[in-house]
């Protein structure tokens, strides 16, 4: 372990928040109505991360398999719920939550297990110091992409209903009538991941690698880790999007190859 080259105090954190306070002042002066939401979001972030620090420290100290498994489950559950929340017209009922949830769980756990067993090989293999942060980074990207993919598919199916049904009426298979919408949904979902990989290192320094460098790791080491993480995250994202969009498509039709928009939830209030 490297000793941090600079030591961060709580006073330093207070200083970092000063810029937001300046903006809050501007917001009040110009009646932008941004002061409150910005301050609330900042306080929320501080509280959430402080709690996380306590939980992570405890997890790392106990190194219990059960506690790690529970943490992973809670993370997957939250990821599924947060994804569902971001889809304007998800599938109705429990399916709307279970389809993205299953896609996220399968892709997340497969990728995590693969990384732990072959590339990182910590002892024990489930060591929370590795499993939890890596899953966290995977879920951050996967949630976003799955929500984008399902949202795009269901919105397009709703908007293009007449055109999709026109193809069914001419004897085309559901799969063929939906092909361009399927492609569009998958592409939309993966676009942020593609863009991220293209821009990383040119304009943007990924947070994880930057953090490691700030705490004294050599750029070579930090970047190697960053590359592994990006590749794992991109792989997990692609897999999750595939499963989630195909799963949703499956529920948008039935054994008579109808377009079943009645299976979508109503507009959110």
């Amino acid at each position, binding site marked *: 372990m490297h000793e941090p080259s600079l030591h961060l105090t709580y006073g330093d954190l207070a200083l970092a928040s000063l810029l937001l306070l300046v903006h809050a002042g501007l917001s009040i002066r110009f009646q932008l109505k941004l002061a409150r939401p910005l301050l609330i979001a900042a306080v929320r972030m501080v509280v959430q991360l402080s709690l996380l620090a306590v939980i992570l420290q405890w997890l790392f100290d106990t190194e219990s398999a059960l506690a790690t498994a529970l943490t992973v489950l809670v993370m997957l559950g939250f990821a599924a719920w947060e994804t569902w929340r971001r889809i304007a017209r998800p599938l109705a009922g429990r399916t709307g939550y279970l389809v993205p949830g299953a896609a996220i769980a399968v892709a997340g756990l497969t990728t995590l297990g693969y990384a732990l067993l072959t590339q990182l090989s910590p002892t024990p293999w489930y060591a929370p110091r590795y499993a939890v942060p890596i899953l966290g980074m995977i879920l951050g990207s996967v949630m976003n992409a799955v929500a984008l993919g399902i949202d795009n598919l269901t919105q397009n199916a709703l908007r293009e209903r*007449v055109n999709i049904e026109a193809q069914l009426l001419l004897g085309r298979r559901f799969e063929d009538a939906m092909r361009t919408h399927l492609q569009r949904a998958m592409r939309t979902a993966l676009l942020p991941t593609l863009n991220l990989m293209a821009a990383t290192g040119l304009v943007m320094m990924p947070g994880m690698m930057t953090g490691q460098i700030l705490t004294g790791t050599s750029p070579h080491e930090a970047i190697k880790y960053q590359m592994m993480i990006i590749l794992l995250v991109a792989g997990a994202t692609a897999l999750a999007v595939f499963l989630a969009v195909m799963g949703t498509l499956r529920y948008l039709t039935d054994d008579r190859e109808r377009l079943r928009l009645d299976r979508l939830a109503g507009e959110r209030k």
Partner: protein
Amino acid sequence: MVVPPFRCDSVFTAVGGPFNFAAAPGACLTFMGPSGVGKSLLLRALADLDPHRGEVFLGAVSQSACPPHDWRRQVAYVPAAAGWWAETVAEHFGDLASLTDDLVALGLPPECGAWPVARLSSGERQRLALLRAVALHSPVLLLDEPTANLDADTSLAVENWLLAQKRAGVTLIWVTHDAAQAQRVADRRFALEHGGVFEAPHA
């Protein structure tokens, strides 16, 4: 064309039923009824686009036993406002060049295949949607107000073109709001109500 009889047996849609009727091969049945009574929903059920109770037969083949894409080729439904998914007209047809005679009969120029769909008028869309379905050579056509967007002359031309399909053996299930049109084209006329279909006495 040898066309099997078409039969609708105790079909319930989301808003009505039971609907019972049978059409002899090459017959034209018209259906009239107030807006919202479920005329389009009945046609959607006949084409198996919506879940519904009851059974539909084409000869001995039942809808539920027929692969859905096969069924929709046999029982071709032309909605009142049909959909378009590609940029130009010709992309929606297998071979538009072989349909020049029909284009002329419908009052459309043979070169309309190159037209962008976005610039079609509602009347042009309607006639092209009819032609697109007729080009499938289906034994049964389900028509939802096929002349609603047309002027009187064009409307008659389309009527005559559809009756020519009927003479070739195609069964027509024709929803219309126009009583005079029903008189002109129908072998049998039906009134559609929530509780079922009722045949009008011969005029």
